[in-house]
């Protein structure tokens, strides 16, 4: 894992974990030249998570305030029945992710 501060989401910070999310957009012209036009990181990638748009319509909302971190309720879509916590041993998922804050 990176030590010290690195640039993420256009500012210097302690990198949040071994990995962090990001989305980039490119354009290719008729001559094959490629251009970088856009990048978003962190909550900037939330825009494509349509489930949150639905949750923003219901009385309980996202209901993440009492959680240790937002999205800690999330599982792979085949793991909700078992409650299996993916990658419990890696830094991204703290071992106590399931315990209340």
């Amino acid at each position, binding site marked *: 894992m990176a030590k010290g501060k690195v640039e993420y989401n256009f500012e210097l910070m302690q990198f949040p974990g071994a990995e962090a999310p990001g989305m980039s957009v490119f*354009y290719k012209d008729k001559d094959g030249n490629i251009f970088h036009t856009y990048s978003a990181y962190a909550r900037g990638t939330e825009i494509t998570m349509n489930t949150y748009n639905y949750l923003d319509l219901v009385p309980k909302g996202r209901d993440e305030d009492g959680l240790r971190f937002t999205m800690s309720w999330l599982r792979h879509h085949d793991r909700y029945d078992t409650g299996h916590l993916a990658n419990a041993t890696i830094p991204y998922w703290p071992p106590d992710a399931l315990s209340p804050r």
Partner: protein
Amino acid sequence: MSTRTIDNPKIVSRDEWLVARKKLLAREKQFTRERDAVAAERRQLPWVKVEKIYVFDSAVGKKTLADLFDGRSQLIVYHLMFGPEWKEACPSCSFNMDHTDGALVHLAQRDVSFAAVSRAPISKIEAFKKRLGMEV
């Protein structure tokens, strides 16, 4: 205005509800227009020419960044958190991709290709995609 919670709702008549709903609608419309304006500003961002050659492993061999455009002029690349030593990809990124599979066919109609990239070896990625039935 006191904040309502799920345990402390305010119950009103249909007429009163309509007044409150229309008040919120005004703000929602403002937000919709602001979102359009931000998107327009996003499209006005300057571009940077990509000079470096990026090569990715895929299920069908090596692909350059240019290959990922797949015949279209616009490409979205999502960095899906799947470290080389991880057993599975990040649940939040997988959650994001759950929303993406259904969009791919529509994006293609609008000249947009999509690729998710990870640092994990392609064998792990393919096994994970198969388990979750992922298209991307």
